[in-house]
């Protein structure tokens, strides 16, 4: 009994950690989509962030510099997308897909010299008193800084979108870009900034993977998390707190299936590895069956090109 109870703490802790890359990437993409832009390049931006963060940390020995580099690299990759779709009016879906392919290739190239190099994970940030609580102490209060930042980003994004003027303008641009333009808002500029933010967040999510969650670089190490992040945003009907629940669900099932694999059941490990993806999509599909809710929260101009003179 006690042994099982003792397991809960580490499992919870691992779940929050597994959810963090998704949380960053999905929150970033949520803001992008709320501004009316669909960037399917999340996976690519995560990979570029992952490899840049890793490389900078290895070279400089400074994890904060690494994360900064990851955010910058993600934003830079995103700026390419922004320039093509917002500046040159390229199709957003095609450009986003191309961005992912580009990110996979670029990250492999940059990462060539870094395969197999070990990296010290981030130190745990223990909160005195609280992290010594039984069962949940380590899970809730003994995590890495980025795990806290990820959770903190949820209310921050919510406050920004629904309580600030800048957030209101951003939602307005995503809802009806022609009207926003008629009122004198700079649609392209606002969307570009949102795209940069989305890139930086994706980069951070990727860097958390390569610098902390599994402190190493491997090609394609995001393993489709960028796509899950995209799905999370839609199925969470563009609500930050639901994105968080979805990310935790994904993290929870990831960890649970690892433990099941460890217990040695006679189930092919490939099937078990599929579970987190399957479970996330299934549960979110169930949640989002309410068509009305999607219609009310979906940015009406999502993916539509905007030209100020039209």
């Amino acid at each position, binding site marked *: 009994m006690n042994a099982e109870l003792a397991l809960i703490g580490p499992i919870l802790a691992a779940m929050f950690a597994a959810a963090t890359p998704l949380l960053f990437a999905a929150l970033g993409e949520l803001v992008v989509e709320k501004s009316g832009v669909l960037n399917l390049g999340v996976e690519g931006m995560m990979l570029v962030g992952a490899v840049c963060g890793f490389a900078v940390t290895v070279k400089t020995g400074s994890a904060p510099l690494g994360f900064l580099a990851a955010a910058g690299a993600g934003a830079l990759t995103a700026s390419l997308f922004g320039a093509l779709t917002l500046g040159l009016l390229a199709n957003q879906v095609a450009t986003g897909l191309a961005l992912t392919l580009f990110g996979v290739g670029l990250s492999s190239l940059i990462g060539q010299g870094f395969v197999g190099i070990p990296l010290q994970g981030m130190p745990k940030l223990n909160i005195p008193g609280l992290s010594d609580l039984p069962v949940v102490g380590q899970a809730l209060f003994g995590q890495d800084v980025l795990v806290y930042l990820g959770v903190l980003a949820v209310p921050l994004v919510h406050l920004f979108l629904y309580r600030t*003027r800048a957030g209101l303008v951003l939602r307005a641009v995503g809802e009806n870009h022609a009207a926003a333009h008629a009122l004198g808002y700079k649609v392209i500029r606002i969307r570009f900034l949102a795209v940069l933010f989305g890139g930086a967040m994706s980069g951070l999510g990727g860097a958390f993977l390569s610098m902390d969650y599994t402190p190493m670089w491997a090609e394609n190490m995001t393993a489709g998390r960028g796509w899950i992040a995209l799905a999370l945003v839609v199925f969470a009907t563009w609500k930050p707190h639901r994105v968080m629940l979805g990310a935790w669900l994904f993290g929870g099932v990831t960890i649970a299936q690892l433990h099941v694999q460890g217990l040695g059941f006679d189930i092919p490990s490939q099937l078990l590895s599929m579970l987190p993806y399957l479970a996330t999509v299934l549960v979110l599909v169930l949640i989002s069956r309410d068509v009305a809710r999607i219609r009310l929260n979906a940015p009406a101009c999502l993916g539509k090109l905007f030209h100020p003179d039209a």
Partner: protein
Amino acid sequence: MDSSLPTDPPPPRLELRGITKRFPGCLANDHVDLVLQPGEIHALLGENGAGKSTLVKMIYGVLHPDSGTILWQGRETRVPDPAGARQLGVGMVFQHFSLFDTLTVTENIALGLEKPGPMDALAAKIRSVSERYGLALDPERHVFHLSVGERQRVEIVRCLLQDPKLLIMDEPTSVLTPQEATKLFETLRRLAAEGCTILYISHKLEEIRALCSRATVLRGGRVVGACDPRLETARGLAELMIGSELSSPERPPQGAAGAARLSVRHLSTTSDNPFATNLKDVSFEVRAGEILGIAGVAGNGQAELMAALSGEVLVADPASVVIEGARAGHLGPRARRALGLAFVPEERLGRGTVPELSLSDNALLSGYASETLVTGGMVRFGRARAYAETIIKGFNVVTHGHRAEARSLSGGNLQKFIIGREVLQRPKLLIVGQPTWGVDAGAAAAIHQALIGLARSGAAVLVISQDLDELFVLSDRISVLFHGRLSDSRPTHETSVERIGLLMGGLFATPPDEDGEIARAL
């Protein structure tokens, strides 16, 4: 008409001198002069493409003139952007509202203000302004819940909160019931009395005669006249606009109504779309030789009715839509066309035509069967071209030929083409949504004549429109759609604009959330 007044000490609120704006391939404004005095309600008249929108967009800073000067209260000014215009004191209510459906009234208004301040204080301000001018509004509601009239109030209140000195209204009443329009006029007169100048753009000439003290007429980008509309007839104004004599449609008396060509029985719809209006127990019939008009303010179920009748959306009970005696509720658009139905949707580009396709290809899309433009799966392009040319000639469509892309035509010409395409197929039943929305007077008269002619030749015609004047010209009987319910029909000569207007405001219907019998208020 009288020449421009000598500039007396209070300088004009706004003066435009020699404003010229050129777009690729067209001169939208050609040396336009305009003088607006403080406190006057000034009409800007003109057909589609006369350059009215371009002109007001330059006043509001959305576009910039190529040459010419703008004087604001006597001082030369450049309006860099809409924010700059608002700072000067120019407010604008757009024809297509610049509102955001999923945001609240307060949020929408905040977006139009430079310094909205805290939301609670703004909501209080909205309440006080809307009470002062009799524009009832709930600041907390989401815009998609609002009626079109309420949406317009949001736009007006947004302008009023900035203490405008000049308010531009672009076709403000095209979406209002007559009663709502009357209320709007009261507000506008009150504003003008307080010293605000109002520039009023409309093609509804009776309104302009009732409301405006001066009018400037544009044609082909130039000022062709100025007058006091109160001293003119509506016909005279229309002829000034189009520059030639206006023919009103001839209306031969209706023969005995024939058999029912379309019967709708207890038609109800449900939709996943929260913005949709569900139809509730709609029943009516249209007989051979008559035109039935369905009035109503947009958003009361017109789109849903149109979709259910055309077959774009199938209805659960096949018997609820009967075309030429055949149960058709379960049939798609092609099967319904085979029964003799033709339809002209409200959206000209995207539903009525494919914008990127040529006119002959667009003629092919609905005429391929009845005009045998396709045999054995192969398109007979020669016949399709000939058919398109027949439409273009027969309906005076101004275009450079059957190769022109549909989107290159002006609204009125495209509508003439679409109506022509359907009418020439000799349908037994024609359903038309908003036949002359945004269409200028000359084209509207031609379209009306075509519809009347079709009905008198024995077809049944159903017209769904928000334009009451149009329905009174066209219809033999009129019904009103409100919150998805349809009133009983009345012969047109037994009713009046006022009565239909009351019905459009919902006088006949029970509250939308309750079920029950429709009160027969006619």
